């Protein structure tokens, strides 16, 4: 046990002796959060729209206004022909186009008019958002026209829609995309940070030649592994604190649930992730190999965990592969605590596999480490 503390002390000395690396280690995760939060999956708003109003009437201008007022679109260009409209979409300057036909004003007297709406489908997420928004705007406009017509008709009947769906959002009531993104981003950043920090822990000593000196001492493998992991748990906790502070004060994504529970589960997650780094370090012969293995785990972390894409839509192989990553469970936990404010009993299905992973990884790193030079 005392040897574990000795290793920890030594690791801390290494960390302190290299202030530039320490600065990067502390600053980069916060910087990534700041940067990525503005980049990854923000709410889709202000889609650049090109309009060709061939009708040029009071009625068509009123119809166009509905698009700006919705907030989903911004008027990027106004042109006179369908050709010009398509050109702007081709060049990527506009992502959607609205063509109001010449006879559009007739809608006010009860005649139907087909309004073509063009969408750049190359980005499906943006296209879907634009489609949904345009559809809704069109329906509301049509409804308003109908209501007006009925009101003006001599029959004067009371109009009521037969089915009226009322939405009630249980969590994240403002539907802020950021509230969903940030917990995932925090999880991914921590996972990457943990792997990078420890992946060189053992192999660096191997390259320096100090590992040989270390294995002729009576140290036990678990003392060495834990001594290597724990200092970085502390370092990463500084990261967690900073990241959560930025999330709640800058991005206004506060932790809805128990902060204590969040920190305890984060510690368990980090033991596993840092342990995985040490395991990588154990099986690598050079620091280059270790870095490459650590970097290779980045893509699965981002994609299979459900951070970038909902796992429900994945092929079953990818879906179940996600369960092999502790970050998948941690992501659920983070979203659960930060967004929904749920407790440990609700999160239990995610907690135990994550904890199991941490234990297995630690045991594996101890078993894989041999006090021999071969």
């Amino acid at each position, binding site marked *: 046990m005392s040897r574990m*503390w*000795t290793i920890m*002390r*030594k690791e801390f000395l*290494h960390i302190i002796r290299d202030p530039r690396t320490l600065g990067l280690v502390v600053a980069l995760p916060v910087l990534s959060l700041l940067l990525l939060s503005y980049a990854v999956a923000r709410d889709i708003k202000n889609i650049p729209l090109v309009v060709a109003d061939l009708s040029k009437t009071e009625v068509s201008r009123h119809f166009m206004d509905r698009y700006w007022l919705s907030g989903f679109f911004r008027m990027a260009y106004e042109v006179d022909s369908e050709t010009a409209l398509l050109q702007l979409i081709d060049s990527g300057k506009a992502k959607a186009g609205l063509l109001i036909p010449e006879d559009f004003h007739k809608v006010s007297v009860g005649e139907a008019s087909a309004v073509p709406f063009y969408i750049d489908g190359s980005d499906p997420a943006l296209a879907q958002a634009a489609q949904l928004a345009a559809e809704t705007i069109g329906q509301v406009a049509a409804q308003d026209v109908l209501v007006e017509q009925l009101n003006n008709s001599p029959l004067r009947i009371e109009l009521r829609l037969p089915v009226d769906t009322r939405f009630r959002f249980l969590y994240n009531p403002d539907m802020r995309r950021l509230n969903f993104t940030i917990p995932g981003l925090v999880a991914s950043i921590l996972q990457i940070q943990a792997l990078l920090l420890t992946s060189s822990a053992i192999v660096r000593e191997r390259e320096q*030649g100090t590992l040989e*000196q270390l294995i002729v001492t009576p140290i036990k493998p678990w003392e060495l592994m834990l001594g290597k992991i724990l200092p970085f748990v502390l370092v990463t906790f500084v990261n967690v604190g900073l990241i959560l502070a930025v999330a709640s004060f800058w991005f206004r994504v506060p932790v809805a649930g128990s902060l204590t529970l969040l920190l305890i589960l984060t510690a368990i997650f980090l033991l596993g992730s840092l342990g995985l780094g040490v395991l990588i370090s154990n099986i690598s012969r050079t620091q280059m190999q270790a870095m490459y293995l650590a970097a290779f785990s980045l893509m699965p972390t981002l994609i299979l965990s459900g951070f970038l894409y909902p796992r429900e839509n994945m092929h079953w192989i990818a879906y179940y592969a996600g369960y092999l990553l502790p970050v998948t469970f941690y992501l659920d936990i983070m979203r659960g605590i930060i967004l929904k404010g749920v407790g440990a009993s609700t999160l239990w299905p995610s907690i135990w596999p994550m904890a199991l992973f941490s234990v297995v990884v630690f045991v594996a790193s101890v078993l894989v480490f041999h006090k021999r030079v071969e």
Partner: protein
Amino acid sequence: MSHGNAVQVDQLTKKFGGFTAVHQVSFAIPTGEIFGLLGPNGAGKTTTIRMLCGILLPTSGRATVLSLDVTRQPEAIKQSIGYMSQKFALYNDLTVIENLDFYARMYQVPAKSRSARLDELLEMAGLVGHEKDKTANLSGAWRQRLALACAIVHRPPMLFLDEPTAGVDPISRREFWNMIYALAGQGVSVLATTHYMDEAEQCNIIGMMHDGRLIALDDPDTLKAGLAGDLLEIECDAPGRAEALAAEFPGVMEAALHGVLLHVNVPDAQVGLSLETALTRAGIVIRRIEQVLPSLEDVFVAMVETQDRARVRAGIAKE
């Protein structure tokens, strides 16, 4: 039987795939003696040391260190030995005292006596006043003495030194060996590898390794006396040509250049005389020719030669 010996090695063999790094090596180190393992790079010295330290598994054979078996009790051995690896494995970003303190704690030197022990080691290594120096900034000789201090922080009765003086100046080498003698005087047994013959002369026992085999094992004087025949030292104007001629001369057992001097091993004085005549007849001006006492280098060269000849005769191809 092994109780009087700090190290007992019996038919120790290590193979890496098809390559035999150490082949059936046997020797013993009596307690308190300095054993020098001599031989060129790749002879199997480091592999032997690593097996004795319990960090490399022997392929076959047996070895005990302080009566503990290297295969079955490596962790018990590690508690009682000091090991200095070739590279002086110190943490460069730590200070002198931090390195020492780290190993003191790794070997669980009791907290009560720790600081007194560290002071003692700083004194011994001549590092007093440099406790706070970064290890990276130390010269080779200082790093070497610090590495030794780290290796003996727990007062091990057995010390393994793998080329402890490589890359260190001659004066520092002598100082280092004085420390080793002092330790041996306190009853510490030492196994050191070296390529320096002058260092080897100072050891109580010498084992010469070549191609993974132990080709000679005895104290330095016996080894030198055991060299068959007479050793002639020849000083002449064309040592290179003289060596080539001598090597081919009938009766000559061994001819080797030592700088500008030619050492020729002959069975008796008669062969020496006829060689002298032959060299003069070939136009070589001989300035001096005399019988000298063999050095360990002569013994080593002769042993390697004998070994190779024996193996060729036995039809074993060299790796």
